[in-house]
């Protein structure tokens, strides 16, 4: 800053920002770091427990069935289309498009929750069967909790953009939420590989 402070009038500044300059963005980063670290550690625990068994999954059990989980992966990846379009609409501050795409993102979220029901039902080892079952269910439940949280957050934001006046700051919130949705999708790809493919490869 030059010594010309008197010439600067802060009243001319905008009252919202998108991305790295905004407070909400850093809150989201913090949340993702914390949750992401939880996944890193749980995956660490997975590989810590793995060498204790001669085979993985232990006890001659087949690897977990792929169908519902893979369907869930595809839906999660497809949900990025409305999610990215939501973020773009929010950045353009286009209210109608934001409403449309956030509603679609919510629909995809609902479908994911339903698929989870089938996926959990089809999972072939219980959490109390052995440590393999415990750590796999831990990964699934952790991701599920994040999914429910973000779906709920998305729904509340969706209702807000329909029923409340939407200004730049609200658009910025919608954009931040879209970043968190990326996190849900990316972590699902990782958890999916860990739970469903590592037992097939190792």
């Amino acid at each position, binding site marked *: 800053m030059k010594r010309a402070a008197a010439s600067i009038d*802060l009243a001319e500044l905008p009252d919202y920002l998108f991305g790295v300059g905004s407070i909400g963005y850093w809150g989201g*980063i913090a949340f993702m770091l914390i949750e992401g670290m939880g996944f890193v550690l749980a995956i660490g625990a997975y590989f810590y427990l793995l060498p204790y068994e001669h085979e993985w999954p232990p006890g001659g059990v087949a690897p977990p069935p792929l169908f519902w989980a893979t369907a869930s992966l595809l839906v999660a990846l497809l949900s990025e289309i409305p999610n990215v379009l939501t973020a773009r609409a929010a950045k353009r501050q286009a209210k109608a498009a934001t409403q449309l795409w956030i509603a679609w993102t919510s629909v995809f979220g609902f479908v994911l929750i339903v698929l989870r029901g089938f996926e959990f039902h089809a999972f072939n080892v219980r959490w109390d069967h052995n440590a393999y079952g415990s750590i796999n*269910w831990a990964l699934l439940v952790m991701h599920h909790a994040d999914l429910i949280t973000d779906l709920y957050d998305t729904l509340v934001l969706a209702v807000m953009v329909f029923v*409340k006046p939407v200004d730049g700051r609200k658009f910025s919130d919608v954009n931040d939420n879209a970043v968190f949705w990326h996190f849900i999708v990316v972590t699902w790809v990782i958890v999916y590989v860990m739970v469903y493919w590592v037992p097939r490869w190792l």
Partner: protein
Amino acid sequence: MSARDADLEKLLARTWADKPGLVGWLTTTDHKRVGRRYLVTAILFFALAGALALVMRTQLAVPNNTLVGPDHYNQIFSLHGSAMMFLFAVPVMTAMGVYLVPLMIGARAISFPRLNAFGYWIYLFGGLTIFIAFALDAGPEAGWTAYVPLSSSDFSAGHRTDIWSQMVNFTEVAALCVAAEVVASFMVTRAPGMRLDRIPLFVWAQLVTAFMMMFAMPSVMLASQALQSDRQFGTHFFNPGEGGDPLLWQHLFWFFGHPEVYIIFIPGLGMISSIVQTFSRRPIFGRTAMVLAMVAIGFLSFGLWVHHMFATGLPPLGNSFYTAASMLIAIPTGVQIFCWIATLWLGRPRFATPLLFVLGFFALFVIGGLSGVMLASVPLDTQVHDTYFVVAHLHYVLIGGAVFPLLGGFYYWFPKFTGKMLSERAGKVNFWLLFIGVNLTFFPMHWLGLAGMPRRIYTYPAGLGWEWANMAATIGSYIVAVAVLLFVGNVLMSLLRGKAAGDNPWDAPDLEWATSSPPPPWNFTEVPVVEDATPLWADEPIETLRGLRGDKREMLLTSIAEARPTARWGCPDPSIWPFFSALALTLQFVWTIFNPWGWVWASIPMAIAMTIWFWPKKSEPSSD
């Protein structure tokens, strides 16, 4: 003050006022009120945990004592350690950050004011839960480290360990709230011109601590959830019979537990830098090196956890690696100490009470560091593992590294918190009593450990030669108690009739001293512009910027590196919903101790409370 400024202050006073009475008390989001509350609560928990320590020392003063039985003793030492670590040491350090960071960076508020209030309530409720449980004979019993299988349902039946495990969740949620607030505040709410090279070292320390909390605390939360799940759902994370491993607990716990020591210690480093700078009356020597040293300590502290596990039979290569890493961290710590010495050497030191506590820190921390280097050596560690040598080491490090800087910081910033000076005379007596008491309590414990006295035993037979050292330690602990009482007395007397402090009683250089003592709810009437790392020592007076609204709670956002003004940001109004959300989360945590369905049912009030919390109100910017 010009008439224009007076009008602006009147307007700001209306805008930033809390509601009167109990409603205002429950709804406030002022980081200073929340920060003060955090401090007082943490000190109360410190006093309670200290009282437990006195009971232990009284029990151990003589052999074959029957004052406390083994079951009660287990609960007492477990709660002492848990409360000191989870309810005092971390929260008191974050409390200082909550109060001071926004002031030191020239912001009107903390980044997430409602989250801040929520975090405090969660912390309070978590602390109350475990102390109430203790009063009902359901205190933790497996040590603050809760090693399995001791903490498994086979050896810890009932709900004692479940309550401990939920207390961990309460306190970590609270601490992580502060971590997010500090990171966001640091990144985008600094005063214009406060470039990265002009940020006070205390604020850097809080940033490093915040990141460390985000990387370390998920580990203990994961561990405590896995423990609870083993106990409640029959999972097998730690059960070797079904492919689990008790050592997994130790890895997860110490991946948190070792950085935790630095989470407590690094804010202390920041306080020392502030105090040394002010009382040497010159800018800190080697600022950049100091920042880099703190960051280095932050990174290295994640590579040391296994040195707590040398006695578990690790491969020799692993042992050597963690020995080397443990010794490596002495380098950035040494850089800090030499920079402080250089600052004092080159300055004109004034030996007021805050600086005395810093000098006390040097002495105690060096002793604790030396025994730390000894413990980092595997052969020695295996000999003294789980003995009083370790108890001596950890208390020297934690009291020397955290409590002494904290008390120094408290004497230093008390005038800012309250507008009153603490008595210097009482402060000096306080320092010497504490210094003598701590050394008398803990130095003989080195000898006790070498003589083979295990930690966590409720009594010992006569004739082992441990009597004199135990008696000395007990006498020392009572001297510490007197010192703490003197400190509390000094605070109360100063609040009643202390000398008025004025804005900047120490002639200190940082921004928190540029506003009144105590600061108004909006911190700064006009936005200060920073052109120097020690702005109040600059030749020219601080310039200010105008243009933030007075009729709304507005703060300034600035860019990350250069701190150029980027936006005005509407802060949320006070709200009761963080309090209700905290109540709902408390319901969930307590419910799940007894019944896992609490996770499902209690999430409904939680979701409702948080939705109302985030729902935009008419007065807030989004509804303009």
